[in-house]
C-alpha cells in the first residue's frame, strides 16, 4: 500500500483540452441567468407588448376578412411579430451585456478567464440566442390562443428562428463592442435595428411596395429571415426560399468572423 506522509504538490493547473467546455458553460449560464433574473422585463414585457401589437394591427388593419398572401391578415402578421420579438430580444441581450460590462468595467471578468476569442463569441451569442428563442416561443404560444396558427414546414421555422436569433446576437455583440456609451448602442438600436426590422415586410407583403422599393427590400437580410420564417407557418413566401437560406447562413458566417476578429484583437475591449 502506497502511503504518503506528506504531499508537497501544490494545486494542479487544470488541464484544458481544445475547448474549455467548463468555462464556456459558465459564460453561457452567466448570460442566461442575467436575463432570467429580471424575467418580467426580459420575457413577460416583450410578450405583452407583442400581443398588444397583434391586437391593434388586427383591429386597425384586419377588418372585413382581409387577406394577405392567401391567409387572413392576423395569420400573416403573427409570424412576423414573433420574429420581431426574437430579433429585438436577441439583440438587446448581447448588446446590453457587453455595454454594461464595459461601462462598469467588469468586462475584465470575461476577458481574463482562459477563454479563447471563439469561445467568447460562442458563449455570449448562445446567451442571446437563448433569450431570443425563449421570447419567441412565449410570444408564439400567446398568439396561438388568439390566432389560428398553422404549421406548414417546421424545419423552416426552426432554421430561420435560430439563424435570426444568432444574427441579431452577433450584431448585438458587434454593436456592444463598438459602443463606448449607452447612447451609442441606443443609436444603433434606433437607427439600424428598428428600421431594418420594420421595413422588412413584417407588417405587409412586399408585393405591395412600389417596384423600385421591392428591389431595395431584397437587399435587406431581415427580409429573408421574416419571409422564410413566415413560409414555415403559412406556406407562402414573397422571395426565393433557397436564396433566403443561403443569405442567412452567409451573413451569419460573415458576422461571426467580424465578432471573432473583434475579440481576438481586443478592439475597444482591451487597453
Amino acid at each position, binding site marked *: 500500500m502506497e502511503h504518503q506522509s506528506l504531499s508537497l504538490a501544490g494545486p494542479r493547473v487544470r488541464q484544458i483540452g481544445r475547448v474549455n467546455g467548463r468555462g464556456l458553460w459558465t459564460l453561457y449560464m452567466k448570460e442566461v441567468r442575467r436575463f432570467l433574473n429580471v424575467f418580467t422585463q426580459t420575457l413577460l414585457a416583450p410578450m405583452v407588448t407583442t400581443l398588444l401589437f397583434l*391586437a391593434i394591427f388586427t383591429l*386597425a388593419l384586419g377588418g372585413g376578412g382581409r387577406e394577405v398572401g392567401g391567409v387572413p391578415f392576423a395569420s400573416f402578421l403573427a409570424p412576423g411579430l414573433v420574429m420581431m420579438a426574437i430579433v429585438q430580444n436577441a439583440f438587446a441581450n448581447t448588446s446590453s451585456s457587453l455595454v454594461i460590462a464595459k461601462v462598469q468595467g467588469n468586462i475584465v471578468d470575461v476577458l481574463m478567464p482562459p477563454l479563447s476569442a471563439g469561445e467568447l463569441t460562442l458563449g455570449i451569442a448562445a446567451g442571446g440566442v437563448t433569450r431570443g428563442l425563449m421570447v419567441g416561443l412565449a410570444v408564439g404560444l400567446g398568439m396561438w390562443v388568439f390566432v389560428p396558427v398553422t404549421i406548414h414546414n417546421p424545419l423552416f421555422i426552426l432554421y430561420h428562428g435560430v439563424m435570426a436569433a444568432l444574427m441579431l446576437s452577433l450584431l448585438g455583440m458587434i454593436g456592444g463592442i463598438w459602443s463606448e456609451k449607452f447612447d451609442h448602442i441606443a443609436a444603433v438600436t434606433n437607427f439600424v435595428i428598428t428600421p431594418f426590422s420594420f421595413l422588412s415586410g413584417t407588417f405587409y407583403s412586399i408585393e405591395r411596395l412600389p417596384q423600385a422599393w421591392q428591389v431595395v427590400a431584397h437587399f435587406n437580410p431581415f427580409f429573408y429571415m421574416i419571409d422564410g420564417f413566415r413560409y414555415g407557418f403559412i406556406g407562402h413566401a414573397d422571395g426565393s426560399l433557397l436564396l433566403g437560406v443561403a443569405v442567412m447562413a452567409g451573413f451569419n458566417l460573415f458576422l461571426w468572423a467580424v465578432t471573432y476578429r473583434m475579440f481576438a484583437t481586443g478592439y475597444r475591449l482591451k487597453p
Partner: protein
Amino acid sequence: MSGAPQRAAAAPPLLAFRAWQPTAFGAVNWRGLWALYYGYGVSRFLRFGLETLAGPLVSSLLFLLVFVVGQRDLGEMLPGVGLTEFIAPGIVLYAVAYTAFQNSAAMIVMDKMEGTIADVQMAPLSPLEVMAGFALSAATCGLASGSLVAIGTALFVDYSYFDATLVLGFAVATALLFALLGTIAGLWAERWDHYGAVEGFVIVPLGLLSGTFFSVVRLPEVFRDWIYFNPVLYAVDGFRAGFIGQAETSLVLGGTLLAALNLILALLAWRLFTAGYKIRP
C-alpha cells in the same frame, strides 16, 4: 443695551467681510424651480438629443410608413378620414406620452439608484416645487419630442384642418398626465426592472389600447364598453379631433376627465414627495 459699553459708531472694522447671505426668495423659490426644471431636467434630456429626440422621431415615422405603405388601399377609418390621417395624430400623441413618462420615471429611478436624489432633496425646494420641477420638465420633454414627430409626419400627412386650441390643450394635458405617472412610478420603483414592469404592463397597454391606431367602431362589441374606462382614449380622441375635426367621444368630458386626473395625480405626487416616500431613509 443697558450695561454694554457703547462703541464708537464710526470705527471701521479691521477687516471687512461681506458675510455670505442665503438667497432670499419669496413664497416660491423661482430660481431653484428653474434650476430643477431646466438645469436638472430639460438640459439633461437635450444633452442626449440623438437618443431622446431623434429616436422617437425615427420609430414614429417608421410606424407611419408601415401604415402608409402596407395599408394604402384599406380605405377610411372614419367617414371622410383616411387611415393615415387618422393614425398620424395618434402616433404623435403616443410620442408625447411615452417620452414624458420615460423622462420623469427614468430620471427619478436613476437619481435614486445613484443617490443623487439627495441633491434635489437638500436644495431649498418645497415638496410642491420638487414635484412641479420634475413633472413640468418631463412634460416639456414629451411636448418637444411630440412637436418634432408632428413636424416629421406633416411631410407625409395632409393636416389641412387644424384646431390649435384642441391640439395644444390635449397635448399639454396628456404630457402632464404621463409626466406625473412617471414621477409616481419613479418614486415607487426601487430597481430598473420595477420601472420596466410599469412601462411594459401599464403604460404601453394604456397607450396602445386607447384608440391610437384604431377607431372604437372597429372594436368587437365586448371591448367597446371597456375601452371607455381608459382615460388615454379621451386624450387621443380629443387631440385627434384637433387635426381631423371629428371626435368619437365627448370633448368636454375628455377635457374635464384629464384635468381631474392631472389634479389627483399631482396631489398624490406632492403627498409622496412630502412624505419622502421611498426617497428618505
